[in-house]
């Protein structure tokens, strides 16, 4: 039997497309370095999460329908965002007449770290990354997709991004005081509950600064964007990177 190389549809969340193209480029290049055939459907827009989390799931049907049509023809869909992937899997409104395609898309979409580990079976990534980093476990990836064990449950300890980064030379993975506290982004929460949102972000950054962390690494740029916004306003000297950028840089 001839094994054909699977065709991957790259889903780039709207805010990454607009504000953080380097994260998208790193994701694409990283997948290519692992020998994947990757295409980015140019017509794509958004997963619909902003509407749904604000309580308007029923108003996101148009966006959802579009998403299904854009991605139903791929073997896998990969995105550098746990939050968007979780939304597509769990909270898309059901689209009439597209049930089969919708189920297919929902079962074939993966967050980048889980795709690398669970589908591509990556065991080790070799490279250099001589930096002191803290990892911000974004909640939707952490507790929704179970990309790592959380501190609430009594389960074996694991972290998919740590698994991918464990062999990078010179990298120091620093443990945080509050390992998986939310950063306070939360989509529209960031503006509707601005006071708490900002306080949570400040507290999260302080946990990193207390430990002299150079770079806060994460898997969801939305959380990082929120904290970067606070850190730059407060003139804190801490960098923010998506783990795709770290891995892609280490592999180059």
């Amino acid at each position: 039997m001839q094994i054909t190389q699977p065709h991957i549809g790259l889903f780039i969340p709207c805010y990454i497309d607009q504000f953080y193209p380097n994260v998208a480029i790193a994701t694409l290049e990283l997948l290519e370095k692992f020998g994947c055939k990757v295409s980015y459907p140019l017509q794509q827009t958004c997963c619909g999460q902003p509407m749904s989390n604000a309580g308007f799931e029923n108003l996101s049907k148009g966006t959802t329908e579009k998403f299904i049509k854009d991605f139903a023809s791929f073997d896998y869909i990969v995105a550098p965002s746990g939050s968007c992937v979780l939304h597509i899997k769990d909270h898309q409104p059901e689209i009439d007449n597209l049930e089969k395609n919708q189920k297919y898309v929902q079962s074939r979409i993966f967050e980048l770290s889980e795709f690398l580990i669970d589908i591509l079976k990556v065991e080790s990534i070799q490279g250099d990354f001589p930096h002191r980093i803290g990892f911000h476990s974004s909640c939707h990836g952490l507790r929704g997709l179970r990309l790592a064990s959380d501190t609430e449950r009594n389960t074996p300890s694991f972290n998919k991004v740590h698994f991918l980064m464990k062999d990078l030379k010179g990298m120091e993975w620093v443990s945080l005081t509050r390992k998986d506290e939310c950063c306070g982004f939360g989509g529209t929460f960031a503006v509707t509950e601005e006071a708490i949102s900002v306080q949570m972000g400040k507290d999260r950054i302080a946990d990193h600064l207390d430990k002299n962390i150079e770079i806060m690494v994460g898997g969801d740029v939305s959380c990082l964007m929120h904290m970067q916004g606070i850190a730059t306003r407060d003139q804190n000297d801490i960098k923010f990177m998506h783990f795709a950028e770290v891995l892609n840089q280490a592999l180059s």
Partner: protein
Amino acid sequence: MSHPKLAEEFLKDPERAKWHDETLWIVRKNRDATIQQIPEWEELRELGSQIKDHTLSKLDFYLEELERKATENGIIVHWAENAQEHNEIVGKILEEKHCNAIVKSKSILTEECHLNPYLEAKGIEVVDTDLGERIIQFLKQPPSHIVMPAIHLKKSDISEVFHRELNTEKGNIDPIYLTYAARLHLRDKFLNAKVAITGVNFAVAETGEFVVCTNEGNADMGVHLADTHIACMGIEKVIPKREHLGVFLRLLARSATGQSITNYNSHFRSPAPGKELHLILVDNGRTKQLGREKFRNSLKCIRCGACMNTCPIYRRSGGFSYESTVPGPIGSILSPGIDIKKYSSLPFASTLCGSCTDVCPVKINIHEQLYEWRQEITKAQGASLKGASMKIADTIFKNPLVYKLSGKVMRASLKNLPDKLIYNPLNTWGTQRNLPELPKETFQSWYKKNRG
């Protein structure tokens, strides 16, 4: 006021807000340390969850069994459809006993029914005997937490109240000294109360008994000194068998405070000779909640408060910011069922981080229900301003050309507008946060150039 406003107020005292956050975080950490010592913790949660699911699916059956068995044991069982009926039943018993002073141990249900003001209006002195509850009773405040009702107060606050109410030394904040003063004060109240009221943590259908869990032994002290014991319970507190207590008692204290078990787990099955034991079964909206498929399992709650201790929003806004009897994540999925309009901001007081769901000892999917309540609330509110903007968003995202154009317009305006306009008061994002620096091109245009 809405939750965001009250949260903002709370955060205006940053030192106190930080103290509140850290105090509750310690409780959460203590809880973590205890559950890590139980290798079968997740199995235990699953068991607790399944027993509760099963009970709720046959609630009528188990309630009738409880009534039958309890009656056989000599307990006088009452049914109350709502808070008013509950209060009237209590009031009537007190009238019959010519009782004008009662002691009461902690009961969130009686808070929910506003029993204290009802009885006080009848000239009855109500003394809450839980230390935390007594403190807030002096201050005429509701509890800010269901397990630690005075958690919002510092030792110095309590010292002041006790100085005023119990004539303790001014400025003495020694917890042992203050507790001793409360003990002397309460002893007198215990000795003079003919009727004692308690809540119920678990009622066992199989045996017709009920269990009250306290750390201070105040429920027992009140009940054993009084001639009449009135126990008030929400109908969801029934469990089928006594052996199930082995699951729930292990889950409850560990989740609540990190203790392996509450200090006093007192079983009440029948009245002592010459005494009376009443059990009031209260619905007050629970049957309605049971009828809401998506929200039914919120009734599994055993009131441990773990979701409050873990919630990053609760810790930074305090219990009063929720303005409901049960605050925090569990309150935010229970309260909209009582009054969807009044509590409409609560399901939005969450980042949907899911910590509440994972900490819950009976596996209530709290954050998913918060999401579902959001959908219900926007439907109930009809077309609002936010609804309109979300419709615009959907139009943008379903139409790639509009998306590109609006992205371009946004990007162009961000590049060219002065900071003053970008960070105007209407742009809440920018009040305390910068916007990301604009890259020279979008990924899409990079892709077209490099892979197209």
